[in-house]
């Protein structure tokens, strides 16, 4: 028996897992429509590659991955694309995002697909297939798996498969392990191969004995070497990657360090399953297991197509009429969904139908009494009460000094807080403010760089122009000097004198020719009038000269 370790803190919230584990995974029927968001993963949003009105087949790519960190999105069933527009999505913000709406034709017709030759295909091709099959981490973080399987930078010794599922209410991984253990392990073998890892450790909380048994049975049956299924004590949040790594290997992943640097990589069981389906069967990620529980008549796990509207899914479990909100995820870390129309995404592991009876409104927050219970339970060994203090007063630099970004937002601190302070909300607020400042800083640096370069360019252009001008002048001067040197000085002067004289003569003849045109053919009266005016002018001029002459003695 392997020695297990423990992490700091943790809490024991009521698990509420029995409700949804009584019946096996049910296949959800084809919904009336699919609303498939193009951003279901960490990284760049997929670019739509279908047109409105186009018929798509099940498994056909509708969103092409864009950039390094991205993943593909597929049509979950065959049908017609009716819209590519902004629709409400399952996100904290309650803001719309780009979605593809598909009306299924009911045929569920697959695109041609085939598994790959896992033995002889190079790893880079396998990773490419993971990317094109839209495989992302299904534990909730939805990080593209092709990036996580890139083992170039670090030597990975241990592959941890996460079946802890520590959050209350959620049982999708539990049921998946009970029913599809063999495929999960095949997926784990592929991941081990991709990472060149030596051993595989599968951690499952001991409140899931059936899952542990099923997985252990599968390991023995398929004779997986150096692969161990370990039952770990139930403690929230043991399913956090760093926490599970600590429990299974004893390695503490330090602040700001990735587990890969310590030789450990971690994948969720459902991700391992999808890796197997994508590589061995060529099936993209089209569906996932979703727990529907809470205020429902038949809490159950469903195999749900990505994009299934929430309303249609919860109706299958018999959502009760007094349901006031839908929570995606568990009660500790979950998000309130903005509407019943949002489509199920790759991140949706659980839907909790909430009612005021099930989750009574939180009592108003009271002042922090510095009891430090939050610090006792913090699995990241932070000082939540200090972080709260700094976040509340917008002292973001200090929150970073207190390692805010090591917070995994597990909610253990808020769970134990006797003052009912929504601590995690403060941390999330501080994190997003810091992220925004970083974005602003980046934009400012870019603008500064571009501005400075522009000024440099303008200055350079100016100099170049001045240089050219100087060059020309120099050339002209050199030419003149050459001419002067060639011809005797006297001749040059004569020639110049001659030129000037010619010019004067020309000007005089021109002036003589260009006398005023309107003085010809005038009547005698007009001529007389002009003469009178000229006389007046002459007189005025005379007077002016006289006055000038008079002035001069005064000045002296």
């Amino acid at each position, binding site marked *: 028996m392997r020695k297990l370790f423990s992490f700091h803190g943790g809490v024991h*919230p*009521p698990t*509420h897992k029995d409700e949804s584990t009584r019946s096996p995974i049910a296949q959800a029927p084809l919904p009336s429509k699919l609303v498939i968001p193009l*951003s279901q993963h960490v990284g760049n949003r997929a670019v739509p590659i279908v047109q409105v009105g186009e018929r798509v087949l099940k498994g056909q790519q509708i969103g092409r991955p864009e950039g390094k960190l991205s993943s593909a999105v597929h049509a979950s069933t065959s049908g017609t694309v009716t819209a590519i527009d902004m629709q409400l*999505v399952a*996100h*904290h*913000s309650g*803001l*719309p*995002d780009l979605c593809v709406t598909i009306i299924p034709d009911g045929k569920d017709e697959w695109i041609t697909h085939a598994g790959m030759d896992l033995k002889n295909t190079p790893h880079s091709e396998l990773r490419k297939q993971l990317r094109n099959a839209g495989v992302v981490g299904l534990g909730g973080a939805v990080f593209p798996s092709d990036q996580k399987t890139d083992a170039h930078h670090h030597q990975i010794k241990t592959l941890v498969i996460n079946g802890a599922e520590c959050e*209350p*209410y959620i049982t999708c991984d539990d049921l998946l392990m009970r029913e599809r253990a063999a495929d999960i392990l095949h997926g784990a073998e592929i991941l081990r191969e991709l990472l060149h890892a030596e051993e595989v450790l599968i951690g499952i909380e001991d409140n899931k004995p059936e899952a542990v048994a099923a997985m252990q049975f599968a390991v023995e049956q398929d004779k997986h070497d150096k692969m161990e299924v370990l039952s770990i004590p139930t403690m929230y949040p043991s399913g956090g990657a760093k926490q599970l790594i600590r429990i299974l290997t004893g390695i503490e992943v330090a602040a700001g360090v990735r587990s890969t640097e310590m030789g450990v990589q971690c994948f969720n069981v459902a991700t391992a399953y999808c890796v197997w389906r994508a590589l061995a069967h060529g099936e993209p990620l089209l569906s996932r297991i979703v727990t529907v529980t809470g205020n429902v008549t038949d809490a159950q796990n469903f195999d749900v197509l990505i994009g299934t509207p929430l309303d249609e899914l919860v109706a299958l479990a018999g959502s009760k009429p007094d349901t006031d909100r839908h*929570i995606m995820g568990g*009660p*500790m870390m*979950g998000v*309130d969904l903005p509407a019943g129309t949002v489509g199920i995404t790759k991140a949706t592991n659980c839907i909790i139908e*909430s009612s005021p009876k*099930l*989750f*009574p*409104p*939180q009592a108003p927050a009271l002042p922090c009494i510095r009891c430090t219970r939050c610090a006792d339970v913090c699995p990241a060994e932070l000082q939540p009460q200090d972080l709260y203090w700094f976040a*509340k007063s917008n002292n973001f630099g200090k929150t970073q000094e207190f390692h805010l970004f090591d917070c995994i937002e597990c*909610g253990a601190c*808020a*769970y134990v807080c006797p003052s009912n302070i*929504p*601590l*995690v*909300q*403060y941390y*999330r*607020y501080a*994190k*997003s*403010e810091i*992220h*925004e400042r970083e*974005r*602003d800083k980046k*934009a*400012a*640096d*870019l*603008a*500064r760089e*571009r*501005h400075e*370069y*522009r000024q440099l360019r303008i200055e350079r252009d100016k100099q170049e122009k001045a240089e050219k001008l100087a060059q020309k002048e120099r050339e002209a001067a050199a030419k003149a000097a050459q001419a002067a040197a060639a011809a005797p000085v006297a001749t040059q002067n004569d020639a110049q004198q001659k030129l000037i004289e010619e010019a004067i003569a020309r000007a005089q003849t021109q002036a003589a020719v260009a006398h005023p045109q309107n003085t010809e053919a005038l009547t005698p009266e007009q001529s007389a009038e002009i003469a009178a005016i000229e006389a007046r002018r002459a007189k005025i001029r005379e007077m002016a000269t006289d006055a000038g002459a008079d002035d001069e003695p005064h000045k002296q």
Partner: protein
Amino acid sequence: MISALWVMIGISLLLGAVLGYSSIKFKVEGNPLVEKIDAVLPQTQCGQCGYPGCKPYAEAIAKGETSINKCPPGGEEGIQKLADLLGVEFQPFGEGAAPKGKAVAFIDEQTCIGCTLCIQACPVDAIVGAAKQMHTIIASECTGCELCLPPCPVDCITMQAIGENITNWKWRHPVIIPIKAAA
């Protein structure tokens, strides 16, 4: 007595020489304070402060020629940062200098006549185009300084506010009640 005097004079000459040498050898080029102030400024290069860019404003602040509350794009937080950096009192914005929401310029391509005046006005080279060719804004590089608006002879440039979307959305200061399992 005399020898002590000589020792003291010797030491003072030596130290003076060292100081003199290091003041030449390790001379700091430019004013480091300007760089620090410039780092706080938002680099929109908009000239709303009355100086032709952020660097000149930073230089003016460093010399004490102007006040720290003349940069609307930096917001009140910017003023606070400058106040902290310079060890002076926070000053609120003056009349008509309130910060606006973030925006990017947008060229109506139907109206644009391709005069290149806006290209010459843009402080960060965020406009692409050529004479008698349509111009367009590189939105990701645009600082929203509005300097391209006045030179446009056909008024085809408008400022478009950057609305809240999923990528730039932020968590609000908590008012939301957390979800807590019923015990």
